[in-house]
C-alpha cells in the first residue's frame, strides 16, 4: 500500500489505475526474467533469515524480528567500483506520481551533466507488471518494502555497490541494515510516513489526544457524511484491527480480520463513511472533518487551505508513543539499467541532507536522514508548528507497526473483508 496509490498526474486520487487483464503475460515475464529462480532454492545465492516466517513456496517474509538478507546471484552482479559516471546520458526514473521534487532532478542533472526523466506509475502492481515485461529501460525504481521478494527473485533489481553511496552514513541507523534488506544490499531508504487520524478542530470537539481509544474516533454518528477512511485494504482493515485493540497489522487470524472488516461495516452504517485517498484536499477544504490519513498528505495541508482559513484548524494524531502504523519506501537500481553509475550516484544524492530538505518541501514526505527533525522542518518553514505531529521519528520504527507482505491466502482474506466493508 502506498500514499500515492492511484494518483494521476493532476494529483487527484481516482480509480483509474485499473490493472490490465494481461497479468498472465506479466507473470510469465517474471518467470522468464527469473530464469527459473522463482523459488529461493533455485537461486545461486542463499537467503538468510533468523526465524522461519515464510510465505507460500518458501519465500521469506521479512519482519523486524525476522530480518531477511536476500541472495546474490552470479548472473546479476553489482557494478565494479571506481567507474566514471556516464556522460551526456539520460537517467530514467520510474516513480510514483508527484513523489520527487523536480528541482532535485534539475540540480542532479546539472551536477553530473546528464538529463533526468521521470516516468510515473499509479500502483506497485502495475509498476511490477511493466518491469517484468522487460520492455522498459529505466535506471532507478522506487519500490515499497513488501515487494522485495518479487524484485530479488525476479532479478528485476541489481545489488548496490556501496562505494558509490557514502551518504548512507547520513541515514538513520535503522536503515543501514533494515530487516527487509539485510546489509542494504539492494536498497537505500526513501520516504517514511505514519498513518493516523486527521481532523478539523473547528468542526470536531473531540481531541484524539485525550480519547481513551483514538483509533475509534471516526465511529461517531453525529459526524455522518463527514468521516472518511483511506481507500486501501491494508490500511483500513488495520484501522478496524486497532479499533478492536489488535496491533498485529500482519495478522493471519481469520477471526480478527473478519471482526476488523465488520468494524468498518459498522463505521459505514454509522457515518456513511467516505472511502478515498484525498485526505490532503478534503480535510483542508472542510469537506471531511475526520479522515484516516497519511502523515505526508496532512503535512502538505498548508498548500490546500482555502483562502482565509488558517492551517491551525487541521490536526493530525499519531500515537505519541509511536505505536501505530509506520512505513517507508526505498530506492533501487534496476537490473540492466543503461546508466548504473549515474543511478548509484543518484541514490547517493538523495541521501544528502540539503537535497532531502528540498525534496520534503515539495512532496511533504520525510526521509530518514540525520538532521531531518521536527525543529528543522519548522525552522525551514517546510512544516507549520501545528502539524509537527506529522513528523516521523526514528523511534517509531522500533515501536511502530508496519504493514508488510503477508501470505497469499491471508492477503485474499484481507481483500475480501475490505471488499465487503466497502460494499455495505
Amino acid at each position, binding site marked *: 500500500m502506498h500514499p500515492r496509490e492511484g494518483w494521476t498526474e493532476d494529483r487527484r486520487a481516482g480509480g483509474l489505475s485499473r490493472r490490465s487483464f494481461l497479468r498472465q503475460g506479466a*507473470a510469465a515475464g517474471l518467470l522468464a526474467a527469473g530464469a527459473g529462480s522463482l523459488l529461493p532454492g533455485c537461486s545461486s545465492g542463499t537467503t538468510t533469515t533468523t526465524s522461519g516466517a515464510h510465505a*507460500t513456496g518458501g519465500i521469506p517474509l521479512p519482519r523486524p524480528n525476522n530480518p531477511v538478507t536476500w541472495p546474490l546471484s552470479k548472473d546479476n552482479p553489482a557494478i565494479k567500483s571506481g567507474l566514471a559516471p556516464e556522460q551526456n546520458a539520460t537517467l530514467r526514473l520510474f516513480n510514483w506520481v508527484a513523489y520527487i521534487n523536480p528541482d532535485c532532478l534539475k540540480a542532479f542533472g546539472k551536477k553530473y551533466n546528464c538529463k533526468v526523466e521521470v516516468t510515473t506509475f499509479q500502483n506497485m502492481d502495475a509498476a511490477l507488471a511493466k518491469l517484468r515485461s522487460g520492455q522498459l529501460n529505466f535506471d532507478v525504481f522506487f519500490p515499497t518494502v513488501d515487494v522485495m521478494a518479487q524484485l530479488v527473485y525476479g532479478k528485476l533489481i541489481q545489488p548496490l555497490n556501496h562505494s558509490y553511496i557514502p551518504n548512507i552514513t547520513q541515514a538513520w541507523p535503522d536503515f543501514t541494515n533494515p530487516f527487509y534488506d539485510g546489509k542494504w544490499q539492494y536498497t537505500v531508504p526513501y520516504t517514511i510516513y505514519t498513518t493516523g487520524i486527521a481532523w478539523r478542530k473547528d468542526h470536531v470537539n473531540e481531541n484524539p489526544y485525550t480519547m481513551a481509544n483514538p483509533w475509534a474516533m471516526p465511529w461517531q454518528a453525529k459526524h455522518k457524511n463527514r468521516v472518511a477512511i483511506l481507500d486501501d485494504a491494508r490500511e483500513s482493515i488495520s484501522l478496524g484491527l486497532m479499533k478492536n485493540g489488535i496491533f498485529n497489522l500482519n495478522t493471519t487470524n481469520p477471526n480478527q480480520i473478519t471482526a476488523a472488516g465488520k468494524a468498518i461495516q459498522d463505521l459505514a452504517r454509522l457515518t456513511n463513511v467516505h*472511502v478515498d485517498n484525498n485526505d490532503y484536499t478534503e480535510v483542508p477544504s472542510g469537506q471531511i472533518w475526520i479522515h484516516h490519513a497519511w502523515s505526508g498528505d496532512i503535512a502538505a495541508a498548508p498548500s490546500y487551505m482555502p483562502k482565509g482559513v488558517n492551517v491551525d484548524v487541521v490536526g493530525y494524531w499519531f500515537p505519541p508513543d509511536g505505536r501505530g502504523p509506520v512505513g517507508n519506501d526505498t530506492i533501487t537500481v534496476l537490473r540492466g539499467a543503461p546508466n548504473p553509475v549515474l543511478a548509484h550516484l543518484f541514490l547517493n544524492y538523495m541521501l544528502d541532507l540539503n537535497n532531502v530538505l528540498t525534496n520534503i518541501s515539495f512532496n511533504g514526505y520525510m526521509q530518514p536522514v540525520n538532521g531531518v527533525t521536527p525543529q528543522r522542518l519548522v525552522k525551514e518553514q517546510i512544516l507549520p508548528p501545528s502539524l509537527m505531529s506529522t513528523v516521523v521519528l526514528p523511534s517509531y520504527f522500533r515501536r511502530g507497526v508496519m504493514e508488510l507482505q503477508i501470505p*497469499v491466502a491471508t492477503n485474499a482474506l484481507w481483500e475480501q473483508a475490505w471488499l465487503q466493508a466497502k460494499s455495505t
Partner: protein
Amino acid sequence: MAPGQEHVGPGRRNRQKEAHRLFWAALAAPGIIWLALLFIVPFYAILAIAGGQLDLFGVPVAVWNPLHWSSANFSAAWHDVAGSSAFVGPIIGRTLVYVALASLISLLIAYPVAYFVARFAGRRKALFLVLLIAPFWISYMMRMLAWIDLLQANGYVNKALSLLHLISQPVNWLGGLGITVVFGLVYGYIPYLILVLYAGLDRIDPALIEAGRDLGLGRVRTFVHVTLPLSRQAILTGMLITMLPMLGDYFTNQLLSGTSGTTMFGNVIDDQLSSSGGVLQGEGAVFSMLFLLVLVAPMIYYVVATNRSSQGAA
C-alpha cells in the same frame, strides 16, 4: 433480347452472383475479423483468468486450457452472491434503481431537446448539433472532476440554489448522496441519448405529422399517436446505448460519492480487479463475465425489436 445485348447463360449468371457475394463478404471481412478479435479473444482471456490460479506471489495466472480450469473463483463469486456472507445482492438492486432513475431523467430531458433540434432548429440545426457534441471533446473524467468543484459546499450549485431561495443551508452534495450519483450518470451519458433521439426524430417524414394534423388531430394527440410511435425505435436504441455503460459505471460513484452507501456493481468489479497483488482478480473476472452475459439479454431484445420494426416498415 434487345439488339446488341449479350446473352448471359444461367451458369455465368450464377458465377456472377457468387462473385458479387464474395466481393461483399470480402469487404465485410476486415470488420468481422476485427470485431471477433476484440470480442472473442478478450472474452476468452477473462475466462482464462476466471478459471486460472494464483502464482507464489498471489498474481493471477491465466489457464488457457479449459480442461485445467479451476472452479475456485466461480465458487467464491457464488458465495458473494448467495452464500452466508453474500453482499452483492443489495448492490445489484441499488445499481438497477440508480440506472433506471438516471435513464428516465435522461429521457425526460433528452427527448424535448432532440425534438426541438430535429423539428424546429431550422438553419441552426448544425450549430445545435455541434453544441450537443461539444461535451464529447472533454474527457468524461474531466467533466466529472469539474462537477466536484461545482458541488462543493461553497460551490456554484449551492450558491445558485441559495440565490433562488431553494435551500437555507448548503447541501453536502458530495457527502455520499445517491441523488448526486444519479445526476452524475444523467450528465455523463445524456449526450449519447440526445444524439440517437435526434437521428431518429430527424428521419420522421414531416408529411406523416402533417397528415395527422390534416386528419384533425391536435398537437398533443399528433405527438402521442404519430411522432411518439415513430420514434419508439430511437428511444429503444438510445436507452440501450446509455443504460449499458451506466450499468457498468464505477467512476461516477467513485468521484461524486465515494461512500459505501452508494456502491454500484461496477465498483465491486473494479475493487476486485485492483485488489492488492491481484488476489481477487479471478473473482472479478467471473463477475465481469456474468455481467456481460446478463447484458446480452437486452441486446438480443434490441436486435429482435429492430428486426420487427424493419419488417413492419417493409
